């Protein structure tokens, strides 16, 4: 069984309230942190090997160490709770059921970064979670964990929750900052990076909800102890939100040593695929990461068991691997149509492109239209090459990573499932009523049954 840190007390009745959370050991990390020097906290986070849990996987301690400290200029911590990557619903779970975990992590992190006013930018649709967080903030304040001179330390800290209003792009940190300033979510050109000029041109650190929550066990147990969990550069635990064709969709905390096969088929996690269906494909890290066919998902090109961690999931690069991403894990069974699924993702990215950069604004629209054409039996063979060409021209040619995020799912679908696209085009009528199924796989390849 995986070690649990963030969700260890998730099932304690009343854990949402301050009283129960505190009784179960909550806010200990704040007591400890306030007796440390801010630099010592940053050092512990560096030692822990914690990597950003929003998708990019950038080392958190390193990110913190970049924050500029010009004399007399306030600094800010902004928590990215704009969770919008299809397949991802892990931050929601943490905030909804254990809101104090995030607040606790934010107080410690704010102290480490010297942020006296910190913000949670939450996606607008999570309206009821905004209320839960605001209640938790009030409780924390009433008990002396927020406000002036916290626990007699001399450190002042306020936390405010800002609701977005429906824009995936605001999960990108500079778009989020623009939005927090009351503007359209158009990503900024970097440099300057937020660590130098962020919100209101002040040094700013933007971190994902889960990242900030992970600071709590790091301070409680020490960075080295945290780094002992996991393998290599995949230290600590990771929240995975699992969805699609599985028996037990939900949010799971894993230590990053388990295999993908165990995650899908074990009763502790996804519990296998319903109705005796076979695994066809999986998008393991949110819709932006490359989709993998079952054979490459479970085993790397080298023939090793693929594990649920940063290194193993990306083993083989994009040719035969994928990415850990946000941990939004979507399983597709043999009845799912890759063309249709890719079309819905292309539509998503077209809808969410901010429109600043032409390759993304125009390219996402083209990809959506061509995929719809193929999906509805009107495709031509040349369309597949056209799609490939468009995605290649978007990737790397935009201000922010949304362009790449839109290009990769299309590229991976063609790379691994080209035969299914061709079948759609060659069978314009059949493709409307029938599925391509598992014809990708030669009989020799082992595809497990539940």
């Amino acid at each position: 069984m995986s070690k649990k840190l963030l969700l260890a007390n998730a099932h304690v009745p009343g854990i949402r309230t301050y009283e129960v959370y505190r009784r179960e050991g909550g806010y200990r990390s704040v007591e400890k942190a306030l007796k440390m020097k801010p630099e010592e906290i940053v050092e512990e986070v560096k030692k822990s090997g914690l990597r950003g849990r929003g998708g990019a996987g950038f080392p958190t301690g390193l990110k913190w160490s970049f924050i500029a400290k010009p004399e007399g200029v306030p600094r800010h911590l902004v928590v990215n709770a704009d969770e919008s990557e299809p397949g991802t619903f892990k931050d929601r779970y943490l905030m909804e059921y254990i809101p104090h975990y995030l607040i606790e992590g934010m107080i410690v992190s704010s102290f480490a970064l010297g942020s006296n006013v910190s913000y949670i930018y939450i996606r607008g649709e999570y309206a009821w979670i905004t209320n839960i967080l605001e209640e938790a903030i009030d409780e924390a304040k009433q008990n002396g964990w927020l406000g002036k001179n916290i626990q007699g330390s001399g450190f002042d800290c306020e936390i405010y929750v800002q609701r977005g209003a429906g824009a995936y792009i605001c999960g990108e940190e500079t778009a989020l900052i623009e939005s927090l300033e009351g503007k359209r979510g158009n990503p900024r050109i970097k440099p300057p990076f937020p660590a130098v000029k962020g919100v209101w041109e002040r040094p700013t650190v933007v971190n994902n909800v889960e990242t900030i929550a992970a600071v709590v066990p790091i301070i409680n147990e020490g960075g080295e102890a945290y780094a002992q969990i996991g393998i290599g550069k995949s230290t600590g635990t990771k929240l995975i939100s699992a969805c699609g064709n599985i028996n037990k969709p939900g949010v799971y905390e894993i230590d990053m040593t388990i295999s993908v096969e165990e995650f899908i088929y074990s009763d502790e996690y996804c519990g296998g695929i319903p109705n005796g269906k076979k695994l066809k494909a999986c998008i393991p890290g949110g819709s932006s990461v490359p989709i993998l066919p079952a054979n490459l998902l479970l085993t790397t090109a080298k023939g090793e068991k693929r594990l649920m961690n940063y290194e193993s999931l990306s083993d083989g690069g994009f040719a035969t691997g994928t990415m850990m991403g946000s941990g939004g894990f979507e399983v597709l069974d043999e009845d799912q149509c890759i063309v249709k699924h890719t079309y819905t993702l292309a539509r998503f990215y077209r809808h969410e492109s901010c429109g600043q950069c032409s390759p993304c604004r125009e390219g996402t629209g083209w990809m959506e239209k061509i995929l719809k054409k193929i999906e509805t039996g009107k495709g031509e063979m040349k369309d597949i090459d056209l799609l490939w060409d468009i995605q290649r021209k978007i990737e790397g040619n935009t201000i922010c990573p949304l362009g790449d995020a839109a290009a990769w799912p299309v590229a991976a679908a063609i790379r691994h499932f080209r035969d299914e696209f061709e079948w759609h085009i060659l069978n314009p009528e059949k493709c409307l009523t029938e599925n391509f199924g598992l014809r990708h796989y030669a009989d020799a390849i082992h595809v497990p049954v539940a």
Partner: protein
Amino acid sequence: MVSFNEQQIAKVKQIIARYPEGKQKSALLPVLHLAQDSFGGWLDVPVMDYVASLLSIEPIEVYEVASFYSMYNLKPVGKHLFEVCQTGPCMVKGCDDIIDYIKLKLNINVGETTADGMFTLKTVECLGACGYAPMMQYGKTYREHLTKEKVDAIIEECRAKSN
């Protein structure tokens, strides 16, 4: 003349106080939410102009934001707004059938409002409920694991509220 009541004005002031002096424009998104909730579920031009005056910014600064974010309605919507997610994970779990069923049941297409002004149906992109699909947003709540029976019950619930 559009105007918030005293309580709403107090709320606006409270929101503005979260940001540094002179950065009241940061309050725009939360104040637009408040305005939409207070003035009939959508943002008419006079409402946006009023918000601009409250925050001492130009009306265009409000329009460009209101038109960017999908949660702000720039046209009137029905009393009850159903926003059904249609992205990959919801598609896999049968959102198309749910959308078709609501269309049939309310006799409207996606993007339309019933003649009595009661219901509007929209499709939306991923709302972060992928493990509980298919789903829709109704008001400030998520309705998850949708079935035709659940859709019936939600529609009944709306009708009961309006009676």
